[in-house]
């Protein structure tokens, strides 16, 4: 079923939205062609993929620092007052004996973002073109896209805790600045993965033969 040919050799381009295969790949650089079926503009590659993906990644890395320095939540319950950071929150769960929740939050707020930083940098700057590396990189991109949104867990936990406690006069919980930075980090890493075009890695392979 595979023709063994790549789209470039047959002058084909597929619509990002409806998947219709249209002719005129070589013209896309010069004029804007529109999909025969749905009318979306046809693009050979995602617009400015490498540069946008890098920019989002660097912005995400920069915001991850204040996200960890500033407290994410202020709580006052039964006279205990505390400002907790992301790592502080994990330690609190760990010390109170709920190691499973501590592990879960660690995975979502520390392990997943860091994995994404490393994986995206690898995808953006690794130039190896062996067959095995290419298949590996394609899989890595899918994996990064798949795990990305689980990092939102901490943002939602803070929002839900703060929201639920409002209905009880005895406790106070408020989101703090850190969670805004953390939320922005998660959104930016997701955008970095979404704007990365996996086909660029395969183009490089073709160029190198």
């Amino acid at each position, binding site marked *: *079923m*595979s*023709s063994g*040919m*790549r*789209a470039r050799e047959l002058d*084909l*381009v597929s619509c990002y*939205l*409806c*998947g*219709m*295969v*249209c*002719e*005129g790949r070589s013209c896309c650089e010069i004029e804007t*062609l529109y*999909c*025969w*079926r*749905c*009318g*979306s503009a*046809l693009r050979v590659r995602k617009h400015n993929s490498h540069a946008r993906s890098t920019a989002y990644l660097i912005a995400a890395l920069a915001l991850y620092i204040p996200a960890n320095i500033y407290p994410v939540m202020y709580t006052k*319950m*039964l006279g205990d007052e505390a400002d907790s950071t992301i790592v502080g929150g994990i330690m609190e769960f760990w010390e*109170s004996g709920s190691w499973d*929740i501590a592990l879960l*939050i660690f995975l979502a707020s520390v392990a997943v973002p860091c994995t994404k930083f490393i994986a995206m940098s690898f995808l953006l700057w690794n130039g190896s073109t062996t067959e095995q590396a*290419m298949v590996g990189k*394609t*899989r890595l991109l899918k994996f990064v*896209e798949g795990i990305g*949104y*689980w990092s*939102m*867990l901490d*943002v*939602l*936990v*803070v*929002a*839900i*805790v*703060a*929201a*639920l*406690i*409002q*209905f*009880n006069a*005895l*406790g106070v919980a408020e*989101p703090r600045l850190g*969670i805004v930075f953390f*939320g922005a980090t998660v959104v930016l890493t997701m955008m970095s993965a*979404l704007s990365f075009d*996996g*086909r660029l890695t*395969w183009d490089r392979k073709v160029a190198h033969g």
Partner: protein
Amino acid sequence: MSDVRAYPDLMLCEQCDEVYDRQAMVQGASCFCSRCGSRLGKGSLLSIGAWLAWTITAGCLFIFANTFPVATISLDGLQSEATVWQSISALAQGPGTPTAIAAGVVIIGIPGFQIALLLWLLSFAAVGKACPYFVTVLRFLHASRPWGMTEVFLLGVLVAIVKLSSYLHVVAGAGVVCVALLAPLMVVITAHDTDELWRLYERHLPCRVV
């Protein structure tokens, strides 16, 4: 629209641009690219009628998840219940506005929007018609796909309940059960292959020489 020559019988791998013959795809089965190993098409697991039925189910669960309380909190006889919507809008009043907006968008706004669009799209498709604004609807569905976070919300509610239970007496409400049922359903209905819908749309296009 310019006159571009189209090849309905071909498809390209999204990851590496390898050319494939669409006819050879087996209905309902997943196919993988022989070059890069990524999935070529999801295959249609559900018929349009079944897809619509699951979307209606998701719509009902979405309404229940937002109207039943997610948790009952009590301390020293003081008891309070809260639904998702109440909690998020209460949070939006105070200093937590940005957090509340972000949470509201990914757990209520986007899933609700996706369900509404799918209901519109599929109720026309079920009788063999393409709905008005077909392309716009599919464009919105495509763009919103990564941003609906019902599954993460489910986990978030459970963690929040555990966190609060060290200070207060917290009981999960019926809302949580609805979210738990809704989460896998959202994945099924939003990630479903749209190829069949596009072919339906194609039949309603003004006749053109291909």
